[in-house]
């Protein structure tokens, strides 16, 4: 009969241990199954264009530039090239 009592206690202890383990594992399980965010590369770009003829290119932002700054003359006419907008472009880098 001694073995039976021993079993009762052991089972209770084992159950408790199992529960604790599960409780500890849940956050880890959740973090593993969640899809990983894709690696994103960010770059500040500026739209440079000519308000007269509509010629427009996008290029890398240079420090000190601002919207409305004159950065040259239009290659297609004699209008001025101005910075029309500055924004952050996001690229998903293949990985």
């Amino acid at each position, binding site marked *: *009969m*001694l073995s*039976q*009592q021993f079993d009762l*206690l052991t089972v209770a202890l084992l159950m408790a241990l199992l529960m604790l383990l599960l409780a500890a594992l849940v956050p880890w399980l959740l973090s593993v199954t969640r899809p990983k965010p894709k690696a994103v590369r960010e770059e*500040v770009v500026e739209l440079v264009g000519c*308000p007269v003829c509509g010629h427009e290119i996008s290029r890398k*932002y240079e*420090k*000190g530039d*601002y*919207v*409305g*700054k004159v950065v040259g003359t239009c290659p297609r006419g004699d209008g001025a090239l*101005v*910075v*029309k*907008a*500055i*924004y*952050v*472009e*996001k690229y998903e880098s293949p990985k």
Partner: protein
Amino acid sequence: MDGSGETAPYLLYLLLINLVMIFLFWFTDLPQRIQLQRFASFVRGKLYVLEEMEAGARRKAVAYLGTVGVREPSKVIEGFVDNFFFIWPVGIEPTDIIRRLRHLIRTRESSVRDYVKRVLDSAERSVQYSVETVLEVVSVLRLLNKLVRHYLELGLKYNNLILLQYLVFQMPEIVEMARAYANSVDAFASGVPIGDGVGPLVAKMLVEWREPQREIVEGTDLYEVEVGGRRVYAIKASGPGSNVGWPGEALEKLVGELGGAVDRIITVDAALKLESEESGEVVYGTGAAIGDLGPEKIAIERIAESYSIPLDAILVKMSEAEALGPFTKKIYESVVKAYEMVRRTIVEKVKEGGTVVIVGVGNTVGIR
């Protein structure tokens, strides 16, 4: 039956432990105390994150102030953060509250300006404006951390579980707001336009990126163009430093100069989106689209009302982080949409030969 003698003590112990547990959990404050400590430790963890953000913003601010030629930048920041508070005017006597509020706002603005001028003797105005904004951002973060710490300590001092619980539930929002502010230092220091600048950018697009005609009131520019045979005046803050100008006062002055001969006023601004709304949504409605403390908004409403000029509003929806961070492509695309909406409104609602005023409300950092 010889096993029962062995089982009984165990059962007795279990029963005893159960009784003690029941007593502790039902007849004492122990669970609440444990909960209180758990809430407090959660808040402490987040407070640590907040303080890291503040320290990071401070480091960036010191670096920025150093590059624009401020001597002893950390001393300048220290001298700013806890000062320049603002005491709200008396509200139970409302007759001239807007005038008093406006006076206090202008006074504070000029004392901040004087403080910055003293430490930054030979810089141009756009740099001066950006320095002011960076200092303000650091002091917002300081205030936020002080408030969170205050409620944490208050909750622990008086064992106020509800207060701490409330703080715990508020924490994610507070952290997100603090992160938006902390990240905005980069944008202000580097001079890249931020989401709040949609209004000024729409105005700039409408006038085809030309130079302002004149500065109508301090820090606020006036442009004049023709769109489809209508005379269009555009008002925006003077850039490219971080500045919001005085759009209300500027509009008041302009409409006064024109003798009220204006057919429509259109205000364009960024607005905080609801959680279910899409970023970059462009919507239109009626009223003054501006989020100041009151004086500028009421100036717009009053001048529109006194000459019976219809007042339109166009809003670009975005989150707080987007409003304080650099323009994303999505926000830029919605600026183009807002610009088209303004043009459409001018052509559809104002007859040829008429006069329209566009007010591009918002921070003009990175936009001349």
